[in-house]
């Protein structure tokens, strides 16, 4: 027994040391010498850092895989102010649909960089296997009571990929009333993104040039490009209302308005130009409008039964690209012995296609003003089923595991498939596994 107790103490000391080291690192970053209280063997007080960390692996069958690590450091001060710092790192690799249609022969596509090409087997949905990207994201958020019943929050966001930079700021004001049973909130957020894809930004509907190789003639590639980089801004406004119904139930309602302005086209996506027999004649770069206004209403209810907790939410989103979507998200928290729990998760999602979505372009017809064959803005239904298992460790820290299955089912938006395309799979399902380990200390 003595041995076990010693081991426990050692474990606790080790865990504290990790936390202390991270606390020191975090405070060093902030240029502060305060907050080193976690060094002491005292029980954790409010005025210390709490860390949430997670590792997630996302993998689509035959397509993209992503690994994402996230650590969030939160400090609650004695006056209830909260500082939250979050670092996210993810790496993406694998293949992504390029927008082209399957054919009964091998197809050759030029890589987005213009250098080199890749082949797609007969009968296969064309996937571009060029995708490798690493992203680093940093968020900081400060929340404090401004005056009685008014809470303010402000934050910054920075995300950097090899070819993409995103900078953002946000602010939020919340007003509590009715004995803090009701809360109105108002938030603003602004993002500025810069995109510098390898190979530059293609001209709308330019024909995909043949690949050039080392020391080759790249005039064909250059002629198909309009610039090296482009950008967009996103302005979000959100009104929220939270209401406690009774001792068991709390609800939330949000309305969001989002204005996106700038380069909204995906420079890596193309459309197949097909003839009346469904045979591909050319590949054209896609083109989307340079504005999008999205709106959504969101409602959530949480109900605490005697032991279990039900969490249900619904979102309706609509935009001026004529995309409508419905999302239902449900979690059910089931406590087990010793502080452990199970949490099944079910999510249903359905969207209608953007008005300019089309799976291919017909030869001989006028080229539309905008067109994209990106299945992500086409008709689609998706669902997620998952299960989370969490446990309380002997030192009071939380460890949890989450495993989910995500299936996307793109559907025809009513476009007839001529000739050879009738026998091709134009709307292929995508299956993905999401696996996550989380640790809070």
């Amino acid at each position, binding site marked *: 027994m003595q041995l076990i107790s010693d081991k426990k103490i050692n474990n606790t000391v080790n865990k504290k040391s990790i936390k202390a080291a991270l606390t020191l690192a975090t405070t060093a970053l902030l240029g502060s010498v305060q907050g080193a209280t976690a060094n002491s063997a005292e029980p954790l007080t409010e005025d210390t850092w709490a860390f949430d960390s997670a590792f997630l692996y996302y993998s689509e069958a035959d397509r993209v895989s992503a690994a994402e690590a996230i650590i969030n450091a939160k400090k609650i001060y004695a006056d209830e102010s909260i500082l939250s710092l979050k670092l996210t790192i993810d790496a993406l690799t694998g293949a992504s649909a390029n927008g082209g249609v399957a054919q009964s022969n091998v197809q050759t596509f030029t890589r987005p960089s213009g250098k080199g090409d890749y082949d797609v087997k007969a009968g296969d949905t064309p996937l571009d296997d060029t995708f490798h990207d690493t992203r680093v994201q940093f968020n900081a958020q400060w929340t404090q009571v401004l005056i009685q019943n008014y809470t303010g929050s402000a934050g910054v966001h920075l995300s950097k990929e090899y070819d993409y930079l995103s900078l953002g700021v946000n602010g939020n004001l919340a007003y509590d009333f009715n004995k803090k049973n009701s809360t109105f909130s108002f938030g603003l957020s602004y993002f500025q993104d810069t995109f510098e894809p390898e190979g530059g930004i293609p001209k709308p509907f330019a024909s995909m040039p043949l690949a050039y190789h080392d020391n080759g003639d790249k005039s064909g590639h250059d002629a198909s490009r309009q610039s090296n980089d482009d950008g967009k801004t996103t302005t979000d406004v959100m009104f929220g209302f939270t209401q406690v119904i009774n001792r068991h139930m709390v609800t939330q309602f949000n309305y969001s308005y989002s204005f996106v302005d700038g380069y909204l086209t995906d420079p890596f996506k193309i459309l197949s130009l097909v003839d009346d027999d469904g045979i591909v004649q050319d590949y054209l770069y896609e083109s989307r409008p340079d504005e999008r206004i999205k709106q959504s209403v969101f409602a959530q209810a949480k109900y605490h039964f005697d032991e279990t907790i039900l969490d249900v939410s619904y979102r309706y989103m609509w935009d001026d690209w004529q995309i409508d979507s419905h999302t239902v998200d449900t979690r059910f*928290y089931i406590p087990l012995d010793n502080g452990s729990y199970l949490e099944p998760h079910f999510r249903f999602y359905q969207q209608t296609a953007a008005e300019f979505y089309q799976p291919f372009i017909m030869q001989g017809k006028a080229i539309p003003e905008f067109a994209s064959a990106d299945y992500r803005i086409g008709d689609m239904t998706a669902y997620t089923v998952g299960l989370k298992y969490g446990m309380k460790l002997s030192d009071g820290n939380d460890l949890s595991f989450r495993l989910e299955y995500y299936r996307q089912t793109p559907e025809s938006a009513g476009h007839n498939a001529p000739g050879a395309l009738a026998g091709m799979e134009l709307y292929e399902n995508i299956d993905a596994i999401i696996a996550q380990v989380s640790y809070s200390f």
Partner: protein
Amino acid sequence: MNNKFKYSLVFSAVTLASGCSSLGVEPWERDLLAKKQMALTASPIDSALDDHIYFSKEASSGGKSFGGGGCGCN
């Protein structure tokens, strides 16, 4: 879905607010609501990871929190 329905959703949310003074609990009745699991976003890390996945794979984002920009995800 027509505009009338959209506005009625927003309107009903606002109406709820005005009729809410009779709802709620006394401060000493918050034992269940105060639980971490009863927070509207009980696991912010899970939410952040999910938002990133669905932002990259679907045409919708935000609603519960800001949709934002943030990545050139594929």
